[in-house]
């Protein structure tokens, strides 16, 4: 699993209230994507392109358990690479199949707009613009497989343990 795309940078302690504010709670998952980073970076959702990559600092995704990772996925982002990722947010990345990996020092290795090449199998992050490569902290194989398979709900659905979802547009 490999992603090559332009990078958007977000600093330390990005919390899930910023990604999925309470205001959007009652909306459909697709409508919720309009509110991503609305409080701290208004207009960003209109600039971001499908496949783009977020580079974060320390403690990305701190805070509430709300399905913020799903909003990043539904927005069309390719993946997240951060110096460190809040454990609960990381669980939701796996749950909702939004690829995310920790990579120490990644924040200072990129300037916004650089192109990154992220390889989840080789566990590397390369700055294509500067040529610099960093080792990332790979996901345990079991979690990477779960993520690649689409996360928890498709798995439970396939086993007949939850009802299929009828998604409203």
């Amino acid at each position, binding site marked *: 699993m490999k992603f090559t795309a332009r990078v958007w940078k977000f600093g*330390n*302690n990005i*919390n899930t*209230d*910023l990604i999925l*504010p*309470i205001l959007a*709670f*009652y*909306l*459909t*998952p697709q409508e*919720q994507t309009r509110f991503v980073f*609305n*409080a*701290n970076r208004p207009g960003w959702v209109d600039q971001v392109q499908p496949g783009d990559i977020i580079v974060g600092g*320390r*403690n990305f995704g*701190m*805070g*509430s*358990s*709300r*399905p913020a990772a799903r909003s990043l996925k539904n927005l069309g982002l390719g993946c997240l690479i951060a110096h*460190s*990722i*809040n*454990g*609960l947010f*990381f*669980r*939701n990345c796996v*749950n*909702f199949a939004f690829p995310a990996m*920790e990579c120490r020092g990644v924040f200072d290795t990129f300037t916004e707009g650089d192109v990154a090449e992220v390889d989840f199998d080789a566990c590397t992050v390369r700055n294509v613009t500067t040529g610099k490569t960093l080792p990332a902290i790979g996901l*345990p194989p*079991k*979690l990477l497989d779960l993520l690649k398979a689409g*996360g*928890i*709900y498709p798995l*439970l659905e396939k086993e*007949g*343990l*939850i*009802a299929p*979802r009828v998604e409203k547009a």
Partner: protein
Amino acid sequence: MGMTIAEKILAKKSGQARVGPGDLVTVEVDTVILFDNNFMPSQWRDILKIKDRDRLIVVLDHRVPAATQASAGAHRTARQFVEKFGIPRFHDVGYKQGISHQLVADHGYALPGTVLLCSDSHTCSAGVFNCVARGVGGPDVVYAAIKGETWFRMGETVRYELEGKFPLAVTMKDAFLQIAGQYGDHATMNVEYGGPGIADLSINARKTLTTMSAELSAEFATFEPDEVMLEWVRTRNLAPFEPVYPDPDAGYVVVRKVDLSRLEPLVAFPDTVIENSRPVADAVGTAIDQAFVGSCANGTLDDLVLVAKVLEGRQVSPKVRFIVTPGSQNIYREAARRGIITTLVEAGAVVTPATCGACGGGHMGVLGPNETCITATTRNFKGRMGDPSARIFMGSPATVAASAIRGVITDPREFLI
């Protein structure tokens, strides 16, 4: 090398001799809590089968009584789920109403040595009872309810040794703000609390620290057991359990001492609690529109008693809305019996029913544009309690109550010494 408390619990629950940093473990889950957000239309997936109804608890807490048609719908879905599977432990609007983490304490739902999951991030609150309690994602609790198991990725552990006694007007909230301010986030790591200082701390005070450990981004926050805690659990839950102590040679990435006697009232400035704490003096004089005490962190009886002590014989500033939300109706009733509720409302505070309420900006005290609030709750993120332009300071219940009286952020020692 020996194991920490969490490592020992998870080794046992995963059937292994030992687990440590870097391991991915699959474990049996003893208790799964579902709450109203799980049943919101954008999140709920209809569960067709559950592992064991006696391991499930369903709580309506985030927006109770229903704040909107959508939350009323979620409550309805929850009631249908409870009915369908015959879940015995259900906390609906009414006598048994409360915030899930407070109900866990009130009813002794978390037994030492067990594993408890809930998809609210402050589930680590129950770590005060010497168990592995973890806030997880919505899909994780659905999975655990169905399969009876979950996974954990093990990280390093930071041990905090608490020493000494709090000076007057200093609380566990200030101790948390000291830790978050000084040491920052603990992402990917566990925290373990112990030391001679815990003997003088109530369960309520300890619970403020484990609850707030979510704000450190800790994976697990676990207290060492002592007789005070064990007695608390035994008097509320007759089920057998085994407390778990850390091995003498447990591996900690660092051991830090926190001398409670040297702490002072602190406040976190708006937008984050990470490396953002300052002495209250730095904020004194800042005008506020709202003051709030409540949530799973500060809605305990101790917190209400402290607020009443500050308010006794005084009045809330006419420029301030002072909202107090008990953590459970159980606490509300006890506070009423002791006359605490009377003291609060006579002083001009508004006491709401037990709910997460204003802490998450859901209802019961949402902030408007450019307003300033001081809160003794869990979070002060931008936009957390309402409009993103609102500023949220965080302090102890004593600091919040003192500020409500003056109408500006105030050092609580002005009233308590």
